[in-house]
């Protein structure tokens, strides 16, 4: 299976209309390179799951395009569309809802194999099912063939979910919070399986999580995208985003996260937010949506224009913040209107 990049180009998703319109995802762009890992991190309601579903072709973007090998997915010829459809698979968060309670493990795994004629005979089908169960660490496979979902533990179900995604040899797997409902002591086992798939089969991952520590562990070699109220506020390599976060929201997330180490976590310097509560998607504040809570808020600069995804661009490490742009000497990327508003505000208060 040749590997092709998948790109989201200014993709948005709106719900409702007029004054009741909610912009769940608002003008997000990034590309998943073959074999790469990109983590989408953000609080609930920030649009990371919706973005994941659009990447997997399961949800039509209201605006912008999803490109598979450079061409718009909705305009692909039928054959190409089928290839894209199978190239991106999805794993869900809730182990109890991701498997159909009435079908047993064999039925779940053999449906795609039979449907796409990936196996010629019953014996080949059985071998393939055994092989899949072994890849996801459900050994000995015979124990699981007849099992129904309610006879499996949460961790085991997630592994069946991964095996199901592997049946069609996907190029990219969108993993939507796959470990957040699994016991901490078992999470790493599941993450290691996904990492092994990447090394052995070169599968790319769009890994969605609200936990920065899990993102750092899983995508150490890859990239992290931080989302807030439907927008990508920071995008860069994991090690740089974690060590030198640019956007104040990312800094706030990093400083707020408790660590499983008393000495460390009790002395961590905390970023004080101006307000603990998230504004509602129904009436978003003007300019940068984080400004009502942002400790680095500057009147005029932050509440005039909405910072673009690449307001700051440190050779690929993007952040949507004008204050950061000014501090990092990229003032020229700040639009005129914000600069004027900022200087007026300074004159008023001076």
């Amino acid at each position, binding site marked *: 299976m040749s590997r092709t990049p998948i790109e989201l180009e200014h993709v948005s998703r709106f719900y409702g209309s007029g004054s009741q319109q909610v912009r769940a995802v608002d003008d997000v762009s990034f590309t998943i390179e073959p074999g790469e890992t990109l983590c989408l991190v953000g*609080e609930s309601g920030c649009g990371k799951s919706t973005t994941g579903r659009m990447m997997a072709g399961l949800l039509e973007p209201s605006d912008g395009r999803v490109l598979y090998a450079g061409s718009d997915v909705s305009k692909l010829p039928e054959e190409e569309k089928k290839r894209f459809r199978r190239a991106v698979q999805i794993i869900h968060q809730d182990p109890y809802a991701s498997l159909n309670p009435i079908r047993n493990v064999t039925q779940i795994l053999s449906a795609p194999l039979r449907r796409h004629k990936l196996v010629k005979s019953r014996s080949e089908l059985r071998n393939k099912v055994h092989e899949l169960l072994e890849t996801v660490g459900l050994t000995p496979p015979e124990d699981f063939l007849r099992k129904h979902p309610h006879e499996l533990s949460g961790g085991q179900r997630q592994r069946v979910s991964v095996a199901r995604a592997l049946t069609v040899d996907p190029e990219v797997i969108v993993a939507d919070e796959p470990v957040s409902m699994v016991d901490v002591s078992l999470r*790493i086992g599941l993450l290691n399986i996904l990492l092994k798939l990447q090394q052995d089969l070169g599968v790319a991952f769009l890994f969605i999580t*609200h936990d920065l520590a899990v993102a750092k562990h899983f995508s150490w070699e890859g990239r992290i995208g931080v989302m807030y109220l439907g927008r990508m506020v920071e995008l860069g390599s994991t090690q740089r985003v974690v060590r030198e976060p640019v956007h104040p929201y990312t800094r706030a*997330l990093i400083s*707020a996260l408790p*660590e499983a*180490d008393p*000495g460390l976590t009790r002395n961590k310097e905390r970023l004080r937010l101006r307000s603990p509560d998230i504004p509602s998607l129904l009436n978003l504040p003007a300019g940068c949506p984080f400004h009502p809570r942002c400790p680095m808020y500057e009147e005029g600069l932050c509440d005039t224009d909405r910072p673009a995804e690449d307001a700051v661009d440190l050779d690929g490490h993007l952040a949507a913040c004008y204050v950061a742009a000014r501090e990092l000497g990229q003032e020229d990327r700040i639009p005129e209107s914000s600069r004027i508003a900022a200087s007026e505000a300074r004159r008023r208060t001076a």
Partner: protein
Amino acid sequence: MSELAGVTQGAGRNEVLRVRDLEIGYSTDRGRVRAVRGVSFDLEEDDSLAFIGESGSGKTTLGLSLVRLLPQSASIAKGEIVFNTSSGGELDLTDVDDETLRRFRWRECAIVFQSAQNALNPVMRIRGHFADTARDHAESEGVLKGRALTERATECLRLVQLDPERVLKAYPHELSGGMRQRVMIALGLLLNPRVLILDEPTTALDVLTQRAIIEVLTELREGHRFAMIFVSHDLSLAAELADRVATTYAGRIVELGDVEQVFYHPRHPYTVGLLDAVPTLAGEHQELSSIPGSPPDLIDLPTGCKFHPRCPYATDKCREKDPPLIEVAPGQTAACWHWEKVGSDWEARGGERHEQDANRA
């Protein structure tokens, strides 16, 4: 080493709560679930004790039993739960009449649940919740109505950084998850309880809201004289808020000690397993490992030590005899026959990861 070794002897600072050999089971159609199998601990006046455990550890059952809020199918088979009430008398919750229990609840010991999602009555304004609580404790707390009630409620809501004007007249569905959780904490403070129990207080919340709740709880503890018990699967919450930590597995405490002891000098393989499985944000990329096997089935538990099927140190002795809590250091106990070996392995490799961070503490 007697069964009670795990409990600090002597009066020490004045004690709020004493639990001895508590056993709780549920009757289900698949058999009897032994959720809590002999738990003992003490709680001092301004102590903060964390119970860390995963699914099947019985930690929530333990939390609920401290205010006798177990579902009908549950029954306390053995043991005692003794509170030193603010009026000086001792009260054993395992045999108390309903009215005394009702009066005891919230006045002496309040509890905040995990899913603040529907912990508040959806058809009643927040003010109504404060009024109800005050009215039904009028005999013991003195009548608190009208202006006095509003003032007291406003004070509690301010303590948890909420805007009283807006919140008091709001309905629960008009507040966000984080705000509802803080309302629950404010309600908990209304009658100045001696103990506040928090069952997974931050699990359903986002990182920034979680941070706000942790800060509220930390400030409250400094200002107020109340003890705190919280129950969670999240080790980092214990690291943030706890003075003492108890790791629990299959219905029993497997390790109990001060937070530095348990995090930096663990002596039970399960605690070590947990510490090795939790990714941290600070520092370089660590090699993490899962605990093999899956959570225990509380109906047919293995023989001997319940952790032996998943434990790298398991020997025949572990498979036959269930170890009691053994004193491994002053104030620290662990239920493991091979705690010395576990300790020496940990110290050998533990040096580079934890110790030097602790020195900065």
